[in-house]
């Protein structure tokens, strides 16, 4: 089975990991660090992703997209309150947010797909094989629309998403694999934009999630924003300058706020420095850890509510938790560690790199799916109750939150009036009593044969699969016929839209194709260089010195072509080298035949 990689698609950073002989590893090279900033910028040379795109945050803020994960599966109305903070333009089409970049607008799954593609290319270059399958992580508290949007992003990036897995549970897999822990653990995961708490029971290789809770809108970004707001207010008061009209400076303030936060995890006092626009000098200010903590304390407190709810839902007290594991870059903040320690009454574990552990866990899950790891099994839960709207606008719950997935519920529907040919069904997710207060997932119309009222019997099965994604099936109990249901997602892309985006991604991926050709040519060239050098070492004595010199010349020509970006040049030098080494290959084959090594394949000696 083809290799499956594990991807942590984060709010601020993304990583890809793979399983290397039973050990998960993140992919990084000599030139590139493992973390790819989740930033996409439109430049004069087209779309760029990651570290180079991050440089455009202050240079080109209107055309540089960051924190796109916050918009996955959301409508514009959902994010109205924070629109002012983002320098790029957001619009909406068919319930899905669009991000304007130059002439074109992109849905959040399309932007995420660009990040995924970058990770895919990196994995391919590193592993030297084509990657088409992946496990992608999402916050445990993501709803169905947000999960579906993530799956769509994978498809647009040319990846078959074999599993959507929750970030804290992924972390527990990596943690459990390394520590061989048994007992009850709590995973506190505070990332760039989201917060999750999951409580798990680990026993004999089974990772059973007892309860999960969270806040999909609480993370490092929010801490940065508080610091940025403070700085902006002071600049306004002291210098009479309103930076909110300078989006480049707004981004500089945000980045400086982030840096201040990170530094204050190590130091007790730092100096914040900002250049003011139009040569108006520079703003400096001291910031202490105490001040930072005073500012951020309410946000940290907000994360404790979900922790208490998760404990309650799992029927446990803080003292029942054997170990607390910290995940996500924001858990580096000393205040977060203190508050978590106070709640659970024990020192949290943070031995594993909190930035990498989720990707590592995704790689472990990928290995389970490909049949490599067979002793571990994750039994996850659905974070939110699923139900349908009933008479009077009340939500009737079908699958309760924290139910182990896969989970299914069946409901029988009939008609109110004679000859009625359809029944409208509105699917909801959430914990509130009234339908309007919960998340609308989808609406669909059940087709019913025209019969007297109450006679039709349509059984609808709601099934939440192992990805936490809903599938709906309907069966006419009178005829036994199943009916396919066209579910129109309330806040998502339709299948046709995803199809079109996949096509589009091929169209404006002309650059990608050439990039891929270079990568593939380089990989092939590398392999040829290695085998030729081995042949020279093993069989160089079988041919003339002149021929050896000819091979060496062709080798160095290929090596320098490999450094370039022209795939045709690389292929050309490869052909030259093969030609030059032909004599050597024949001589080695003759030699091996002479020595009676008939069992060896030609490919082994060339």
């Amino acid at each position, binding site marked *: *089975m083809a290799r499956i990689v594990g991807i942590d698609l984060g709010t601020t950073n993304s990583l890809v990991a793979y399983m290397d002989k039973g050990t998960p590893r993140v992919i990084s090279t000599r030139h590139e660090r493992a973390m790819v900033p989740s930033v996409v910028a439109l430049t004069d040379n087209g779309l760029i992703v990651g570290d180079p795109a991050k440089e455009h945050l202050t240079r080109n803020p209107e055309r540089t997209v960051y924190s796109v994960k916050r918009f996955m599966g959301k409508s514009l109305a959902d994010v109205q309150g924070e629109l002012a903070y983002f320098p790029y333009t957001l619009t909406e089409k068919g319930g899905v947010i669009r991000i304007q970049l130059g002439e074109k607008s992109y849905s959040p799954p399309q932007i995420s797909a660009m990040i995924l593609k970058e990770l895919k290319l990196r994995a391919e270059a590193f592993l030297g094989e084509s990657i088409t399958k992946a496990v992608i992580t999402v916050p445990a508290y993501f709803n169905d629309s947000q999960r579906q949007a993530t799956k769509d992003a994978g498809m647009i990036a040319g990846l078959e998403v*074999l*599993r959507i897995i929750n970030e804290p549970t992924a972390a527990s897999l990596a943690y459990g694999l390394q520590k061989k822990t048994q007992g009850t653990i709590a995973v506190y995961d505070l990332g760039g934009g989201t917060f999750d708490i999951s409580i798990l029971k680990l*026993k*004999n290789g*089974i990772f*059973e999630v007892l309860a999960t809770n969270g806040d999909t809108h609480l993370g490092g970004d929010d801490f940065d924003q508080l610091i940025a707001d403070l700085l902006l207010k002071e600049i306004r008061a002291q210098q009479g300058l309103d930076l909110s009209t300078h989006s480049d400076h707004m981004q500089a303030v945000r980045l400086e706020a982030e840096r201040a936060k990170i530094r204050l995890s190590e130091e007790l006092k730092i100096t914040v420095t900002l250049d003011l626009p139009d040569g108006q000098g520079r703003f400096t200010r001291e910031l202490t850890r105490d001040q930072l903590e005073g500012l951020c304390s309410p946000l940290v407190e907000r994360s404790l509510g979900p922790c208490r709810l998760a404990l309650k839902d799992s029927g446990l007290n803080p003292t029942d938790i054997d170990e607390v594991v910290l995940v996500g870059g924001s858990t580096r903040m000393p205040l977060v560690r203190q508050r978590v320690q106070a709640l659970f009454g024990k020192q949290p574990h943070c031995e594993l790199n909190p930035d990498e552990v989720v990707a590592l866990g995704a790689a472990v*899950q990928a290995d*389970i*799916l*490909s*049949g490599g790891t*067979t002793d571990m*099994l*994750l*039994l996850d839960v659905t974070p939110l109750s699923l139900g349908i709207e009933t008479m009077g606008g009340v939500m009737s719950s079908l699958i309760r939150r924290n*139910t*182990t*997935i*896969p*989970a*299914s519920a069946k409901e029988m529907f009939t008609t109110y009036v004679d000859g009625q040919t359809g029944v409208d069904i509105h699917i909801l997710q959430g914990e509130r009593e009234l339908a309007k207060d919960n998340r609308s997932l989808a609406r669909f119309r059940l087709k019913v044969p025209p019969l007297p009222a109450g006679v039709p019997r349509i059984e609808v099965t709601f*099934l939440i*699969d*192992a990805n936490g994604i809903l599938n709906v099936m309907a069966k006419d109990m009178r005829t036994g016929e199943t009916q396919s249901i066209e579910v129109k997602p309330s806040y998502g892309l339709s299948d046709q839209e995803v199809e079109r985006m996949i096509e589009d991604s091929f169209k404006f991926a002309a650059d990608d194709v050439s990039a891929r050709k270079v990568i593939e040519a380089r990989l092939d060239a590398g392999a040829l260089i290695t085998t030729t050098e081995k042949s020279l070492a093993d069989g160089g004595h079988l041919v003339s010195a002149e021929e050896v010199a000819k091979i060496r010349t062709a080798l160095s020509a290929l090596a320098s072509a490999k450094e370039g970006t022209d795939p045709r040049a690389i292929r050309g030098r490869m052909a030259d080298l093969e030609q030059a080494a032909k004599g050597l290959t024949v001589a080695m084959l003759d030699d091996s035949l002479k020595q009676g090594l008939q069992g060896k394949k030609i490919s082994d000696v060339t």
Partner: protein
Amino acid sequence: MNGHIHNTDDRRELQMARSMCWHCQSEMAGEYFCDRCVKVQPVSKDLDYFTCFGLPRRLVIDTQVLESKFYELSRAFHPDFYQNKSDAEQSISLGNSAMLNTAYRTLRDPIQRAEYLLDLEAGSVKDIRTSPPADLFEEILELQETLDEFRESDRTSEHAARLRTKLHTDRTNLEERQRDMEARLQQLFSRWDALQDRGEATEQARAERTLILKDMRNILSNRTYVKNIVNDLVATIA
């Protein structure tokens, strides 16, 4: 091997159909996997949750045994282990896993377990009580009035504070009632299990059985009623 297919007894016919492997058509002796082709089999809809876990139909069960059996069957059915299999097997794995999770959730909780057993034994649907149990009638009527009054009151007033104190007392009383009912249920569970263990087929045993089921049903529905009232109360004064 399909000689019995023409049996006129529908139920029997269905059972015969299910006892064949969907894949290789050979007769099934194994529980969840075909002995011959080793393919996973869909768990029959007629299989009750107790049988599914290999447990006797009792109300007091060893939860450790239940858990380890759940883990064992999860390893057998979970979609994670069917990623490389055919679509048919993946679909069976998904259906079986969902069923297994429901079964485990039902049997793990003593109340749900009892409700489920009642369902099996007496073919009853869950009785949803809409009026208070007789012995609680006065008390609950009064409580509803206090709740209404509290909802309409100015929360900062002294009157509201008095009502809140009263509601707290009511809550404590009702929770005690709920615990009483649970203790009585526990006794009924033990009596039921003892009766099943004896396995007598006498008239007297049959009568006792009917009586236990009837009592259980009453207390279960009263308990649900009280529990809902308490939830409502807690939500109101929170």
